[in-house]
C-alpha cells in the first residue's frame, strides 16, 4: 500500500544543518556555567587488582581542588541497562574493592580548572594488590581461571539459547555439511565528539545534567538510582551530540561524578573525556569467537545451522546481554533455516567493556553467516547470489522465537545488486588481482524486549497546534547526528499537511518532553518514535475534522484530509479552510483549550525481537597488490530495503557512513592490545578510513511497504554497517584465493594465505 507523499521521501535538508555549519550548535563541552568546576577521573593502571587503600588527602589539599571522591564516598549502588535482571547490573560508578580493566574508574577530582584537576590525580595514592588477569575467551572459561566477579565463578555472565527443529537429524540428512570457526575483533565507535557531561544542582537539591548521550531517559533513571534520588528529581538534557554509534547508550561514570560532585559542592561541574581515554577505556564492539556449522542439500537448499558464539565482554556486562541475544537472532536471519540451534555465552575478561555498537551483534554474526554462504556456494558449485536467492527469507516467513517478517525485499535487493555491479561478468571473467564479492544483511527496527523494565511507552510524542498554522512537536527521541529530529518533523508535516518550517521541535529533555523514549539504539527511532508522532497527529486531525465537519455541515460520508496547509473534504478540495483557522474552530468549540495531543508506541504481539526487519545486499570490488597484499576497494554497490524511504538524502548518508565504518572494520581498524592494555590510543594509530580511503558507491532503494512502520518505513541506520566486511572478504578471496575467517583482513594475512 503506497501513498503519494508531499514531504516524505524527499531529500529534505537537516533541521539543524545551519546551526552545525555555522558553529553555533552547542555540544556539551561548549557549555560554560558560572562557577563551574572541571573534573578528571583517576583510572586503574592494572587490568585486575584489589584496591587495598586510597589516600586522597594530598590531592584534596592541592590549592584549587574543591572535591575528591572515591567509591567509598558514594551510595555504592550498582547499575546496568538490564534492569529487568538485576543480576546483570554489575558496575559501580566508581570502583569498590576491585578494578577489572586498565582504565577502570577509581576516583574523581573537581577543581577550578582542568589542569589543577589533572595535577591532583597524580597526588591520589592507591594501594593495589595485583591479581592475575585474563585477556581472551579461552583462558577466561578454562577451569580454575581467575574470577572477575564473585557472583560469577565461571566468568560466563549471560547464556542465551535458541533451538527449533531437529538439528542433528538435519545434518544427518544433508548432502553437504560445513563447519568453520570465525574470530572477529573489537573496534571503537570512534564518534568524533568525546563524551562529556555538565551537572548543576538547584537549591532544592535537584539535578540537571547536560550530557553527550543517546539515551536521556536511561541516564535519568540510572543516575537517580545510583545517587539514591527520585527519578523525577533528575533532569537530563541532551545538547547536540557528535555521534554515538552505540558507545553512548548507558549511564557512565563521569555523568554520575558530575552530578554527585555538583550536589556535594553546590557548584556546576563539567567532565570531558580525552580521545586517549576514549580509546583506552571506552566502550567497543564485541570481539567474538563463532563456531558455525551449516548443512545443505545437493541443490543448495539449506537444512539447518548450529551456531555457538562466545562474546568477549571485557570487565563488565554493559550492553553485552543484548549483543548475546541478538547475535543468535541474527544467526537465524536472511535465510530459511528449517532447523536452528544457537548457544551464546557472554564472557568476562580483564579488558575494557564491550557494549553496543552499530549493528549490535549482527556484524559479527552475519560475518560468519555470509562468509560461510560464500564458502558453501563455491564448494557446491552454485553462484553465491543464486544460492542466496534459493534460500532467501520472504515476506510472511516466521522464525520461531524470533519474529514474523512483515515485509521483505531481500530477493529483489540481491537481483538489483547483481545487475548494478555487473556481477556475472566480473565474477566469472575477473581481471588479475581484482575480485568482486558479496555480503548481505538484515536488521531490526528497534527492540521489543523490555530489558530496561520501563513502565512507560517505548516512544511518545506530543503535538501542539496553533491558530497561526504552526505546530510544536515534543519528543524525548535523541538526535545524535542520525537525523531523527528532521525525519520526525517530516512525518508530522506530511500527516498534518504542513511545511517543515511550520514545525518547531523540542527534543530529548526528560523534564519537558513526554515520557518516555528508550533512546537512539537498535535503529528504532523512525519506526517507534515515528509511530508515536503519527499517533499524536492522527488524534489532532480527529479533533480538527470534528470541528470543520460541524462548521461546514458536511454530509457524514465525507472524508477529510490535511494538505498544503489546508483542511478539506477529500471529495471537495475546493471547500477547504486554512489549517490555523481549523485549529481556532476546534479550540473555540472546546472552551478555548489548547489543541494538544499525545501519541505513543509500544510494540505488542510482535515476538521478542522487533516489529520489522530491513534487508539488503552489497557487492564490493577490490584490487589486491600481489606484492604487498594491500587491498584497495574500488567500488560498492548496495541495494537495500528500508520500507518507505522517509528522507532520501538521510538514508544515503546512513549508507555512506556505514560503508566508512564497515571498511574500517574489514581492513584497518583494530585495538592493539598487550596484557589488557590498549596500545593505540590515538587516531594516528587507530586507523579509521579518511576521505581518500573511502571509494565511491552506488545505491538502489528497494521500496517495500512495512505495515507496522510509520508510512511504511523501517530501519536504515544500522543494518547497512553489516554487509561491508563480508563483501570485502569475499572479494579478497576472489582476487587472491585467501579466505579470511579472522578479521581484520590485513596484508600480512593475505600474503600468507593467498593462492597464486
Amino acid at each position, binding site marked *: 500500500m503506497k501513498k503519494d507523499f508531499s514531504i516524505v521521501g524527499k*531529500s529534505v*535538508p*537537516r533541521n*539543524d*544543518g*545551519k*546551526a*552545525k*555549519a*555555522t*558553529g*553555533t*550548535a*552547542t*555540544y556539551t*563541552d*561548549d557549555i*560554560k556555567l558560572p562557577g563551574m568546576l572541571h573534573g578528571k577521573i583517576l583510572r586503574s593502571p592494572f587490568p585486575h587488582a584489589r584496591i587495598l587503600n586510597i589516600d586522597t588527602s594530598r590531592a584534596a589539599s592541592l590549592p584549587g581542588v574543591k572535591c575528591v571522591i572515591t567509591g567509598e564516598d558514594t551510595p555504592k549502588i550498582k547499575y546496568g541497562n538490564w534492569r529487568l535482571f538485576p543480576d546483570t547490573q554489575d558496575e559501580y560508578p566508581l570502583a569498590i574493592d576491585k578494578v577489572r580493566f586498565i582504565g577502570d574508574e577509581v576516583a574523581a577530582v573537581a577543581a577550578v580548572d582542568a589542569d589543577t584537576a589533572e595535577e591532583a590525580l597524580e597526588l591520589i595514592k592507591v594501594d593495589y594488590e595485583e591479581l592475575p588477569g585474563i585477556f581472551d575467551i579461552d583462558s577466561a572459561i578454562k577451569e580454575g581461571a581467575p574470577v572477575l566477579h564473585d557472583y560469577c565463578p565461571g566468568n560466563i555472565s549471560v547464556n542465551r539459547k535458541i533451538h527449533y527443529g531437529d538439528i542433528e537429524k538435519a545434518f544427518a540428512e544433508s548432502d553437504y555439511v560445513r563447519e568453520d570457526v570465525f574470530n572477529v575483533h573489537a573496534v571503537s*565507535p*570512534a*564518534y*568524533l*565528539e*568525546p563524551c562529556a557531561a555538565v551537572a548543576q544542582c538547584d537549591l532544592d537539591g535537584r539535578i540537571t545534567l547536560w550530557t553527550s548521550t543517546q539515551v536521556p531517559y536511561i541516564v535519568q533513571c540510572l543516575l537517580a538510582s545510583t545517587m539514591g534520588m527520585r527519578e523525577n528529581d533528575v533532569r537530563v538534557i541532551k545538547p*547536540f*551530540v*557528535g*555521534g554515538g*554509534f552505540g558507545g553512548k547508550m548507558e549511564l557512565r561514570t563521569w555523568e554520575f561524578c558530575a552530578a554527585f560532585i555538583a550536589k556535594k559542592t553546590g557548584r556546576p561541574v563539567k567532565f*570531558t573525556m*580525552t*580521545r586517549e581515554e576514549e580509546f583506552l577505556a571506552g566502550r567497543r564492539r564485541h570481539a567474538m569467537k563463532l563456531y558455525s556449522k551449516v548443512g545443505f542439500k545437493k541443490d543448495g537448499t539449506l537444512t539447518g545451522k548450529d551456531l555457538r558464539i562466545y562474546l568477549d565482554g571485557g570487565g563488565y556486562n554493559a550492553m553485552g546481554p543484548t549483543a548475546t541475544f541478538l547475535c543468535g537472532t541474527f544467526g537465524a536471519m536472511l535465510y530459511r533455516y528449517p532447523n536452528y540451534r544457537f548457544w551464546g555465552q557472554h564472557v568476562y575478561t580483564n579488558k575494557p567493556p564491550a557494549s553496543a555498537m552499530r549493528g549490535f551483534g549482527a556484524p559479527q554474526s552475519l560475518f560468519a553467516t555470509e562468509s560461510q554462504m560464500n564458502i558453501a556456494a563455491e564448494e557446491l558449485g552454485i553462484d553465491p547470489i543464486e544460492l542466496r536467492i534459493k534460500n532467501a527469507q520472504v515476506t510472511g516467513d516466521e522464525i520461531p522465537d524470533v519474529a514474523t517478517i512483515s515485509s521483505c525485499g531481500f530477493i529483489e535487493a540481491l537481483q538489483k545488486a547483481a545487475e548494478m555491479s555487473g556481477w556475472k561478468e566480473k565474477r566469472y571473467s575477473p581481471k588479475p588481482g581484482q575480485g568482486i564479492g558479496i555480503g548481505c544483511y538484515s536488521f531490526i527496527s528497534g527492540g521489543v524486549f523490555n530489558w530496561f523494565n520501563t513502565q512507560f511507552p517505548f516512544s511518545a510524542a506530543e503535538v501542539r497546534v496553533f491558530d497561526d498554522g504552526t505546530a510544536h512537536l515534543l519528543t524525548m527521541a535523541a538526535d*545524535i*547526528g*542520525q*537525523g531523527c529530529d528532521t525525519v520526525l518533523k517530516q512525518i508530522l508535516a506530511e500527516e498534518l499537511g504542513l511545511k517543515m518550517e511550520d514545525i518547531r521541535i523540542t527534543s530529548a529533555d526528560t523534564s519537558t518532553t513526554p515520557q518516555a523514549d528508550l533512546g537512539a539504539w537498535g535503529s528504532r527511532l523512525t519506526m517507534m518514535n515515528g509511530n508515536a508522532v503519527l499517533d499524536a497527529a492522527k488524534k489532532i486531525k480527529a479533533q480538527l475534522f470534528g470541528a470543520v465537519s460541524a462548521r461546514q455541515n458536511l454530509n457524514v460520508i465525507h472524508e477529510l484530509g490535511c494538505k498544503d496547509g489546508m483542511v478539506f473534504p477529500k471529495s471537495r478540495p475546493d471547500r477547504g479552510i486554512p489549517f490555523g483557522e481549523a485549529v481556532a474552530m476546534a479550540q473555540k468549540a472546546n472552551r478555548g483549550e489548547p489543541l494538544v495531543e499525545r501519541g505513543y508506541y509500544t510494540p505488542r504481539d510482535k515476538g521478542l525481537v522487533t516489529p520489522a526487519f530491513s534487508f539488503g545486499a552489497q557487492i564490493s570490488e577490490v584490487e589486491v597488490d600481489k606484492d604487498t597484499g594491500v587491498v584497495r576497494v574500488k567500488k560498492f554497490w548496495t541495494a537495500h530495503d528500508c520500507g518507505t524511504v522517509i528522507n532520501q*538524502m*538521510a538514508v*544515503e*548518508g546512513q*549508507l*555512506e*557512513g*556505514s*560503508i*566508512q*565504518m564497515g571498511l574500517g572494520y574489514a581492513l584497518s581498524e583494530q585495538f592493539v592490545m598487550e596484557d589488557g592494555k590498549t596500545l593505540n590510543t*590515538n*587516531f*594516528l594509530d587507530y586507523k*579509521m578510513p*579518511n*576521505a*581518500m580511503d*573511502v571509494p*565511491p*558507491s552506488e545505491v538502489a532503494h528497494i521500496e517495500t511497504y512495512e505495515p507496522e512502520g510509520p508510512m511504511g518505513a523501517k530501519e536504515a541506520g544500522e543494518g547497512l554497517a553489516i554487509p561491508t566486511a563480508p563483501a570485502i572478504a569475499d572479494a579478497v578471496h576472489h582476487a587472491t584465493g585467501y579466505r579470511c575467517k579472522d578479521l581484520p583482513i590485513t596484508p600480512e594475512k593475505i600474503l600468507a594465505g593467498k593462492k597464486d
Partner: protein
Amino acid sequence: MKKLINLTINDKEYEVAVEPNQTLTDVIRYDIGLTGTKKGCETGDCGSCTVIMDGKPVNSCLVLAMQAAGRNITTIEGLETEDGLDPVQEAFVEKGAVQCGFCTSGMILSAKTLLDRNPNPNEAEIRSAISGNLCRCTGYQKIVEAVESVNK
C-alpha cells in the same frame, strides 16, 4: 605565568592573557568563547579544531596561542556575512554533508581554503584536501559532492 597577546580572529581584535602552554584551540573555545571550533583529539589527528591561519588550514590544537599572536585567523563563525551563509556552508547544508556536525566546522574550513586557491577542484583534489579531517558519520561522499557543487 600568563602573558597578554593580541589575536585577530574573524577580523576582530582580541586581547587575551594566556599561559605559555595554552593551545590556540583552548583559547578560542574557552577564553574567547567561539565554540564552533571543536576538540576531537588534541593530537592533530582528527581535524575537528581546524581554523584558517594566514590563508592555510591548521590544526589549532597543535598551535600555541602565543604562536598565533599577530596572525590572521578565521574560525567557522567568521564565514557567515550579512548576505548570508558562505557558499561552502550553504552547500554542506543543502547536500546532506552534515550529520552529527562535530567535524563540520573543520571540514568546511579545509574545503574553503581549497576552493579559495582552486575554485574547481576535481574529486581527488577534494579528497586530498579534506583527508586531514576525519568524519565518522557521512563516509565523506556527500561532503565531496557538496564541495564539488560550490562553484558549479
